[in-house]
């Protein structure tokens, strides 16, 4: 696999907790990668290490196969933190220019790029306005533009859709796809599982500072499937349970069944055919990432974690 970013045994301990405790994973070039986890799982600490804000206590970060060097590599990264902010009194155009120059762009380059993006997002009239005049959603859009302005290889977005209306959320989503297509790698951190399911190729789930899940969305769903199928029949027909399956729930024309251990979907169909039950639809129900998330995190005292001392 062609990994743009490789994390090897990263650790970062604070005085009262192990924020990141021995995490390793790879992020493929050009992929949209989801970093998931409950509040306080260590996501932000992990992202801050990737962006060079924090140094890991131990472990290595490889960007493009070479050890991450914040002095140089910082310019290859665009980071949109969850807690976003701007200088309220500064004009928007100047602010974008300033932040782009801090990322190493020349003034001319930055001006050109800002104009391009402002035009694309219909923000041209904003140039001389101040951030304090913008709504939350508008400043979110601005923040996104500033993050991707310098065409970073690695774009890190922490909750990019919070506060956006569906229209603007779609706008940003389309941009994320377009950027990935052009070769940027995107790390996407969120609690919103339906967005992850929709956007991400690959996910890692962290909890209590440890990685507890790593894989493509499709694989993970397969891994956590519970062999539940939805059978749609003609109305009025009721199924009878057999050793091959048990009924989970019954609706007007749909029945959810769980195929028991040692049997296959065809065993079920075979039985329905022999019973001469008319099947209109038959499909497998895979668990949603939301279900998997809750299943894995629930009961781990993730929320009480912040107050527990380290047990070395």
């Amino acid at each position: 696999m062609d990994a743009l970013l490789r994390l090897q045994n990263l650790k970062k301990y604070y005085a009262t907790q192990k924020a990141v405790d021995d995490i390793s994973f790879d992020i493929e070039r050009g992929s949209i990668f989801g970093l998931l986890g409950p509040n306080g799982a260590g996501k932000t600490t992990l992202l801050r290490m990737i962006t060079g804000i924090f140094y890991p206590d131990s472990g290595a970060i490889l960007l493009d196969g070479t050890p991450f060097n914040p002095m140089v590599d910082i310019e290859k990264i665009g980071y949109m933190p969850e807690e976003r902010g701007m200088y309220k009194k500064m004009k928007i155009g100047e602010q974008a220019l300033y932040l782009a120059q801090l990322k190493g762009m020349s003034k001319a380059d930055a001006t050109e790029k800002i104009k391009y993006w402002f035009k694309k997002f219909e923000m041209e009239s904003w140039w001389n306005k101040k951030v304090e005049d913008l709504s939350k959603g508008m400043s979110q859009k601005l923040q996104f533009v500033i993050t991707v302005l310098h065409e970073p290889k690695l774009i890190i977005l922490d909750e990019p859709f919070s506060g956006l209306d569906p229209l603007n959320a779609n706008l940003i989503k389309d941009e994320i796809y377009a950027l990935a297509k052009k070769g940027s790698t995107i790390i996407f951190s969120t609690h919103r599982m339906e967005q992850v399911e929709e956007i991400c190729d690959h996910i890692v789930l962290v909890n209590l500072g440890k990685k507890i899940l790593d894989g493509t969305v499709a694989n993970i769903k397969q891994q956590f499937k519970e062999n539940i199928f939805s059978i749609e029949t003609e109305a009025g027909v009721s199924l009878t349970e057999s050793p091959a399956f048990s009924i989970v729930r019954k609706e007007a024309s749909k029945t959810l069944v769980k195929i028991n251990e040692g049997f296959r979907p065809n065993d079920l169909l075979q039985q329905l055919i022999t019973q001469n039950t008319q099947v209109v639809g038959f499909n497998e129900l895979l668990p949603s990432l939301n279900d998997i998330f809750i299943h894995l995190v629930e009961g781990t005292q993730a929320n009480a974690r912040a107050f527990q001392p380290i047990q070395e």
Partner: protein
Amino acid sequence: MNKTWLIIQREYSSRVKNKRFLILTFLTPILIVGLIAATTYFSITGVEHRNIAVIDPNNFIKNSLKNTNQINFSFPNNVDSNNYQQKGFTDILIIPKFDKDTKTDYILRSKKSMGLMLQESISTKINSAIEDQMLQDAGIQQDILDSIHKASQYSELKAYEDKGSTSKESNAGLAMGIGYASGLLIYITMFIYGTMVMRGVMEEKTNRIAEVIISSVKPFELMMGKIIGIGAVGLTQFLLWIILIISLTSAAAGFLPADVQQQVATLQQSNGQMAGGMMQASESAVKIYNIQHTISTANWPLIIGCFIFYFIGGYLFYAALFAAVGSTVNEDPQDAQSLMFPITMPLIFSYVITTMVTQNPNTPIAFWASIIPFSSPMVMMARVAYGVPSAVSYWELALSMLTLIAGFIFTTWLSGRIYRTGILLYGKKVTWKILIKWAFKKA
């Protein structure tokens, strides 16, 4: 370095372009000059006139008591302390018979109570009149007395300091004034620009822009950029003030009558002596010349050079500490108060020492306070005004400068370490104990 430069530029231009900066910069000198002009004007015109009836049955001081534009003495016959008000007098002064062996008081009765200054001036007048009278009684002629007065009136103490073969006129009053003014100015600006740095850091933290910027530059670069940028704002403000004050005072000098201006110029050329045969210099021309001459005795290049050094050094020393405090504050600006206390205490204490040092520049406390970087910017300025090397030796000045440089390097290093942790930490109330832990933990 390139990025620090960008930060400096932003910090500088966002403040200099601000309306408040322009208003403050241009209004302050106008306010100061206006205030001086107004007090001068009112002290000349806004005085109360007193019409005093003097009861001097023995005509003891009648010939010697002189009227001024404020006080008019008259010697009516039919006035006493019961009817002086009806006769149109504001006060009545009753002089008993004096003789030189016993002390006798004279009495002043007034319609309205008299101010201290006026009372003192009347008291001086009477005493000198009595003195004159007694001298005359002792046989000294009036014309001899007059010539003695004239000769002694304009004499003053002229102090010189000897440096090897050259000797230079020195003026303790001027030195005290310059020392106090520059110490006060440094004290005020430390506060103004220090808190400006602190508020700037707090703004970045509470606005949550710090994290965006710190993913582009190192925290230390952000902190230094802010400190240097705001320091440059301070220097700009000083420069504008100096230009404004010089142009305002020279504009004010232009309003002087032409003959006075010419007399001042002549005095300057002839080093204070009016050439014989030329017109006598008027009193006001002499006064202006004296002020100009006194000011010119100070070693201005040294004082201005030292002022710039101690302003920059002291600013860097304190601004770093203010930045560290700013980085630890959460949403609540009240948090800053308790953390600021250990910074403002030495500042206030140094100011108190400065006021003492302006009068006694060579005490042991003055020496130590001008070496310790917490107080040296203010205290050393107060001492430098008395002259180098006459009041402060070269090695003392060098030592003070070196410790200040070492001091701000240390505070910058220390604050950088606190700042780095504090700027990204939210929701935790910080105490000084925690700050010290941050400062000395490993990276």
